[in-house]
């Protein structure tokens, strides 16, 4: 029998595994280095958008290469190497924790999608997992002091527009005519329906972006306030002891726990949930299957006539 099947014989990390772990961490570390190199230390309240590293002149609008782009790319690379690491040496009888983790991720996402969207959308789990991973990890980048791409409206708007395209695609599964008919079902309500359609991606993107950004803003405000408080109390102490912001030790961490970890994860989950629900609700399942059945019957009829 295989030696690996012996209980407790865990697979050891080999050189390639270590390399993959390093590669997964490297993009984030590189971003941190870049941030330290480019961001000047600043006092006081400084709430601004992402840093623009350089600009590429393009038609319509100039294309900025900003912190949020770089950080998104870092997240994607990290996830890529993490995936390769997790799925290395999969076996039908798992002998490593990482395989169990990988299976857990896959199974949880699939059951989530199945319970929210039904069995028709069996190709959606990777997409939902991508939304969850990208959104949550982007928001969690604040933990290492990086600019969270999710607090850039453009990033979240891109995802919301993709989701909007998917919603519309599934609504049009029964033909554009049916889509228009649904839109103007009570004729008076047509403008409302159109607005609510367009409002979907806007509300989704602004909800996510606003939550993450507000977290950063509140954190910055509280940090500055604590610094001011500390200065006003200990300002009399001589030299560097007086200017040291004592209250900024530890106290902002509590806020960070909520804004960075809880809010980041919950917003990712909400975004994924809304994606699933909008797409599943927009898809006229019964009608689609009825039409498909009819079509099949017709095809069968034609075939039999030809024969």
């Amino acid at each position, binding site marked *: 029998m295989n030696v690996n099947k012996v209980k407790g014989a865990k697979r050891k990390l080999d050189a390639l595994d270590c390399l993959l772990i390093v590669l997964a961490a490297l993009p984030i570390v590189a971003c941190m280095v870049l941030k330290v190199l480019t961001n000047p230390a600043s006092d006081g309240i400084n709430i601004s958008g992402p840093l623009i590293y350089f600009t590429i002149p393009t038609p319509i609008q100039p*294309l900025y290469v900003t912190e949020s782009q770089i950080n998104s*790319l870092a997240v994607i690379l990290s996830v890529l190497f993490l*995936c390769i690491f997790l799925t290395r040496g999969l076996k*039908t009888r798992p002998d490593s924790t990482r395989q169990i983790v990988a*299976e857990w991720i896959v199974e949880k996402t699939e059951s989530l999608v199945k319970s929210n969207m039904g069995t028709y959308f069996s190709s959606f789990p990777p997409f939902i997992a991508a939304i969850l991973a990208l959104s949550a990890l982007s928001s969690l980048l604040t933990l290492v002091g990086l600019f969270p791409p999710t607090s850039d409206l453009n990033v979240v708007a891109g995802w919301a*527009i*993709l989701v909007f395209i998917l919603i519309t695609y599934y609504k049009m599964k029964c033909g554009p005519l049916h889509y228009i008919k649904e839109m103007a079902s009570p004729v008076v309500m047509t403008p409302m329906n159109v607005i609510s359609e367009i409002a979907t991606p806007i509300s989704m993107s602004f909800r996510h972006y606003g939550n993450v950004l507000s977290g950063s803003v509140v954190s910055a405000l509280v940090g500055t306030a604590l610094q001011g408080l500390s200065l006003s109390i200990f300002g009399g102490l001589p030299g560097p002891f007086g200017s040291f912001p004592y209250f900024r030790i530890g106290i902002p961490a509590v806020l960070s726990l909520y804004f960075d970890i809880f809010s980041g994860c919950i917003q990712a989950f909400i975004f994924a949930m809304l994606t699933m629900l909008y797409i599943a609700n927009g898809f006229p399942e019964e009608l689609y299957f009825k039409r498909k059945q009819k079509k099949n019957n017709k095809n069968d009829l034609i075939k039999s006539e030809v024969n």
Partner: protein
Amino acid sequence: MQTQEIINVNIWLILISLCNLVILFLILKKFLFKPVKKVLAERQAEYDAKFAEADGKLAEAEAVKAELDAKFASADDEAERILKDAKDNAERRGVAIVTEAKDKADLIVKNAESEAELRRRKAEESIKDDIADVSVEIAEKIIGREVTERDHRRLVDEFINKMGDEE
């Protein structure tokens, strides 16, 4: 260094972000979901095979059990039959032994009876002789003379025989 406005809309950035999501979707699909699902399917197939095997084994065991049960039942019948035979045999034998014993006892009793009869006869004879002798002696004394013993004896014997017959 320049920063972007906090609320700004840039069509290229939106497009890039959209593509990022698609790329991550493809990455997850290819590098995470595909291999894991493949392994899960393989495991399922393995388990199915194992279960089918186990089902086959179970059916086999059931068959063997049924066979054994049948055998046990027939063995029980056999044992009962043998027991009954033995019982009958024993009974028959017992009866035979008892009858034999009875016969033997009867024989013994008969022998004993005949012997007793013989002894009685002998005793009778000897008593007869004794009585004859005594009576002869008494007669001699009464008569005072010698009676021919032989005659006398004959007389007494006759008498006694008569007595014995009358009795």
